[in-house]
């Protein structure tokens, strides 16, 4: 919660430089600029949260920053996302749904049955730690120094004491557990809108902005980074390893969350719309943190 106010401080020169750098990156990826113009107004809420003085009976929620009234359009605007490819997206939603029930869920259930929880936790910790540098860099991009420090310390501690990250000795230290940042959030932090909503086959819901973010994060993950800068680490940088690792990570992650997708889907009148809205709300809340 306190995190939210950190970026408000305007620390000195190199923060500005970093911002400039980020903006440059953003401009270079021309599609994002396009995304910004396509998307709705920046959903960044006003800094102060003075709740509007509404009648007690009005359905207004003081915990929403800006304290808007639901009878006005603003609220929907912050959650609305352009969906010009709805036909394609709905088709992909169905494809992913089938993939979940036919492939991912059976795989994750079987895996869960065979592999004991401590091992699954360790695998989860390992991948989480492996992506620590990505989160660290995104904290820096957003000028969240304290969070960056936390990421750095956790990565150091967990890679060494935690044996390459299979264990998480930093778990109980709140300073070493900042909010997770990714490049999509970094772009959102600089008020880049979602662009349009895209459902990728296999990868699931995303937006134009978050897709660009995903590519950025992919480039920053240690193995692809080595590959990009032409470090040949043999099997470590091979495509097969990359794909295999992605699969293991996905199955392992899902093994902790079997049933969640079904629950949200069953609770919806229009699952496609429910997931689209949930995706946007979830991303907005992460950007606000």
């Amino acid at each position, binding site marked *: 919660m306190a995190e939210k106010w950190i970026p408000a401080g305007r620390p000195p020169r190199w923060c500005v430089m970093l911002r400039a750098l980020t903006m440059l990156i953003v401009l270079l990826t021309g599609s994002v600029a396009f995304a910004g113009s396509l998307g709705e107004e920046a959903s960044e809420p006003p800094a102060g949260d003075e709740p509007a003085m509404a009648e007690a009976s009005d359905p207004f929620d*003081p*915990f929403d920053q800006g304290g808007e009234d639901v*009878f006005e359009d603003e609220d929907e605007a912050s959650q609305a996302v352009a969906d010009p490819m709805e036909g394609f997206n709905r088709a992909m939603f169905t494809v992913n749904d089938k993939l979940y029930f036919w492939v991912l869920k059976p795989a994750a259930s079987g895996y869960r049955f065979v592999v004991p929880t401590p091992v699954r936790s360790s695998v989860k*910790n390992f991948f989480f730690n492996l992506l620590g540098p990505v989160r660290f860099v995104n904290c820096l991009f957003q000028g969240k120094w304290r969070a960056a420090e936390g990421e750095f310390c956790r990565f150091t501690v967990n890679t060494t004491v935690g044996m390459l990250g299979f264990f998480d000795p930093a778990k109980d230290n709140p300073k070493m557990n900042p909010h997770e940042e990714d490049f999509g959030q970094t772009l959102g932090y600089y008020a880049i809108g979602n662009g349009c909503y895209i459902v990728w086959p296999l990868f699931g819901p995303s937006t134009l902005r978050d897709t660009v973010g995903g590519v950025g994060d992919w480039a920053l993950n240690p193995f692809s980074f080595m590959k990009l800068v032409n470090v040949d680490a043999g099997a470590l940088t091979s495509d097969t390893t990359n794909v295999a690792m992605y699969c293991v990570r996905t199955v392992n992650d899902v093994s902790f969350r079997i049933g969640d997708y079904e629950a949200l889907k069953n*609770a919806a009148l229009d699952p496609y719309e429910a997931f689209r809205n949930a995706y946007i*709300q979830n991303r907005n809340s992460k950007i606000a943190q």
Partner: protein
Amino acid sequence: MRRRLLACILMLAVLGIGPAAAAFTEPMAVIKAPIDEVIELLNDPQYKEAGTEQAQRNAIWQIVRPMFDFEEISRRAVARNWNRFTDAEKKAFVDVFAQFLGNTYIDKIQGEYHNEKIVYLGQEILQEVYAEVKTQIVRETVEIPVNYRMRKYEEGQWRVYDIIVEGVSLVKNYRTQFASILKKKRPSQLIDQLNEKLTEQNQRLVGSGQD
């Protein structure tokens, strides 16, 4: 000296108000008590036997229902379209939506309770009548943030009007769905649609109870 006097007055004020305030239940306690009860029910060996699912579901519903203000939830979810509902439709909608939500989520926790722990992180009160209670569901190594937004009523009772799971507001999620349905359909048709979902759900629950 003056500061100490002020402190004394403050102390007195706090002490004086303390007992009176205790008569009204704290928002977090309003969440915690029923959740503890539900977890107890989920672990109750009495309900481990086959054929007791329905009884357990009813017992959970009895505990959970008073926690929520379903009228407020409905009003917020339907938002500006609420004015299009007649009084009878409003009542019918609140009824069916409450049952639908109850069924969906009780089904979920009943079917998949694996000793998840609930951590109560804290509460925030705004304008004296709005509160947000922050909790976390801890499942193995996964932590799922769940925030309860509540309102205080004249009788001093706090009740939930929205649940935010991982930053996703339940009310707002339904709001977009209801809005797009009500763009093309009448309120009575939305109520019918919910009723259909509910029947479908009940059939599935009964079906799963039998095998």
